[in-house]
């Protein structure tokens, strides 16, 4: 059987000196262990492996992507960032081209005291202690794709809020693919929110070319200190040939709150996993996802959320609308550890199979090792309500429009839960546009980001 991991191991082996020379020592130091872990894993997960009912990292990583290991500057079309500008949103923007960080002038000028946004390479020099204290501590080569990200890691984004620093504006990281040749980006985002700080981060994925294969390997690590608040919005609006494997790790101290919404609107196959550790008493996590897939796209989400301390709250709402032959998967596991009394956990996965040949694989799980907890989970998968559809058509609403309105109504509660006002309005509009006319429209036609 093919083993796409080998080409990466060979690349690292043959170019280790170059990779190391173009990355800070703090990142180089992680490499040997990551390579070692990769050799132990032996291969990337395949379709049918546990947790991978649809999408296959093995296949995702198989094409011959270019990697910018010499850190050659790729011209950044800064104007491109305006394409996804959310109207009326006041954000501090940085652009990540491939995997190179480019702050905008407004970002550098307007960061308040105590908030830092910079490239991981720079952070490794300026804050060596912080970086070594946090980087890869959660991700820790826990899976082959994560270990591969670490083994190839040369740069990334570092965001830090010092104790008590609160930033209301969102920090927007616009990830852009724009090379004329197939490209793989090794993205790493490290977010450290210290005690009583507040951060909002918006990650947007764009591809400027629809005719080139891109792959993004993304690892996000978030540390939310005591009573810190972190919001993370992740919006995929790329091209059908842009695939993505994203792993998010969050550790929350007591009283920390984490809120995230992922929106997969246009793009290629996507695998996202989140691991949330509620380590301190009274922490709360809310995860939402809105997935609209068409064509033969595969979208997998998995969540491992652990209540390790008393009085923590968690909410999950994952919704899929699957058109055409698209496939979705949701694997959600909530673990309540011994001693995590007064846990309040709820997990919901609701799916709409719009396309006749679309499929959904839903696997919600609860593991409770503690009494005195409130935990619920529910998963439903169905088709559009035929009675509602006929009712609408009987009033003269054409079938396509009635379908669109019903899917939109189904999705709206996730969009409505977004706490950034301008982004919430934007998401409502993007969903409407995404569903407008032909739901199988590619990103290039969907005009959402024009």
């Amino acid at each position, binding site marked *: 059987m093919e083993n796409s991991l080998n080409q990466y191991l060979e690349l690292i082996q043959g170019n280790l000196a170059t990779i190391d020379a173009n990355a800070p020592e703090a990142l180089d130091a992680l490499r040997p262990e990551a390579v070692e872990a990769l050799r132990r894993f032996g291969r990337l997960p395949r379709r049918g492996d546990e947790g991978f009912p649809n999408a296959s990292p093995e296949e995702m990583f198989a094409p011959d992507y270019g990697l910018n290991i010499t850190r050659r500057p790729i011209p950044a079309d800064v104007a491109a960032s305006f394409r996804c500008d959310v109207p009326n949103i006041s954000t501090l923007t940085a652009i990540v081209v491939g995997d190179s960080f480019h702050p905008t002038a407004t970002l550098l000028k307007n960061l308040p005291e105590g908030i830092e946004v910079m490239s991981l390479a720079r952070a490794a020099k300026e804050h060596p202690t912080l970086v070594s204290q946090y980087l890869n501590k959660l991700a820790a080569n826990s899976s082959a794709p994560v270990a591969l990200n670490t083994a190839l890691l040369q740069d990334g984004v570092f965001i830090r809020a010092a104790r008590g620093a609160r930033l209301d504006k969102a920090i927007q990281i616009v990830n852009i693919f724009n090379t004329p040749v197939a490209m793989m980006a090794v993205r790493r985002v490290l977010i450290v929110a210290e005690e009583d700080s507040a951060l909002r981060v918006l990650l947007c994925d764009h591809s400027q070319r629809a005719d080139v294969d891109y792959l993004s390997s993304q690892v996000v690590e978030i540390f939310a200190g005591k009573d810190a608040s972190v919001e993370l919005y992740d919006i995929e609006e790329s091209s059908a040939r842009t695939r993505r494997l994203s792993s998010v790790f969050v550790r929350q101290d007591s009283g920390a709150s984490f809120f995230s919404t992922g929106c997969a609107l246009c793009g290629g196959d996507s695998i996202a996993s989140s691991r949330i550790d509620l380590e301190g008493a009274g922490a709360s996590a809310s995860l939402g996802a809105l997935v609209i897939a068409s064509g033969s796209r595969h979208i997998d989400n998995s969540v491992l959320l652990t209540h390790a301390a008393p009085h923590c709250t968690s909410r999950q709402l994952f919704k899929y609308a699957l058109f055409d032959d698209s496939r979705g998967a949701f694997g959600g596991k909530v673990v309540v550890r011994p001693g995590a009394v007064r846990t309040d956990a709820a997990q919901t996965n609701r799916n709409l199979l719009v396309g006749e040949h679309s499929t959904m694989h839903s696997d919600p799980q609860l593991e409770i090792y503690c009494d005195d907890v409130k935990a619920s989970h529910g998963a439903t998968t169905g088709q559009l*309500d*035929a*009675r*509602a559809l*006929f*009712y*609408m*058509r*009987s*009033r*003269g*609403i*054409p*079938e396509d*429009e*009635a379908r669109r*309105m*019903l899917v*939109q*109504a*189904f999705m*709206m*509660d996730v969009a409505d839960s977004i706490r950034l006002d301008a982004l919430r309005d934007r998401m409502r509009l993007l969903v409407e546009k995404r569903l407008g006319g032909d739901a199988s429209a590619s990103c290039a036609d969907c005009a959402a980001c024009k």
Partner: protein
Amino acid sequence: MQPILKVENLRAGIEGKEILKGINLTVNPGEVHAIMGPNGSGKSTFSGVLAGDPRFTVLGGSAVLDGTQLLDLPPETRSHAGLFLSFQYPVEIPGVTMVNFMRAAVNAKRKYLNEDPLSAAEFLKLMRQKRAIVELDNKLASRSVNEGFSGGEKKRNEIFQMAMLEPKLSILDETDSGLDIDALRIVAGGVNKLRTDRNATIVITHYQRLLDYIRPDFVHILYKGRIVYSGGPELALELEEKGYDWIKEQVGE
């Protein structure tokens, strides 16, 4: 004069079972027809088939609405052509507001008629005017379609939609079911206000009660998929008094 509706030898069924076994009915402008009949006689099938409910299969015959052959058209086009069905059980549509629902419906019809869509202001004005006809609360108009509406509110909402769409032919399917006497009066009052000499109404009902408020010109008795008896308004009174047994006897059972 061209009839508003001409149904000839209409046969239809559900899941392979024939329910309508040859219906003939002509409705002229300005007329109100009542269709009565015992449970299971095919009354709701008849209205569903005319509106294009995909649950039913047409097995034969024809139905022409003001010159337009209905039976091959999708439900939305039948609506555009001037047909309106007030549902016995109006459907709840969570997440779709009444305003968006009605705007989509009204503008789809305007598009069919080659008219420009209404502006937001024009549309809201129209909503306001038509709401008054059935005393529908503004709060209901801003909620999701039928979601959390009481039985009476749902039926008033049906007549409100009918007012918005100005159909040539309205079919009221058991509009009186689940209504108390006050709601019945309001709903029937709304229907009467919308009557002109250019449109027509078919009232499907079990009971005489609704016909005290919406006076029919003709009453038809549907039994086992056929109209077995037609008469004037007095027929409804006769049914109220004697039940359906004498009809069953007349058709030889």
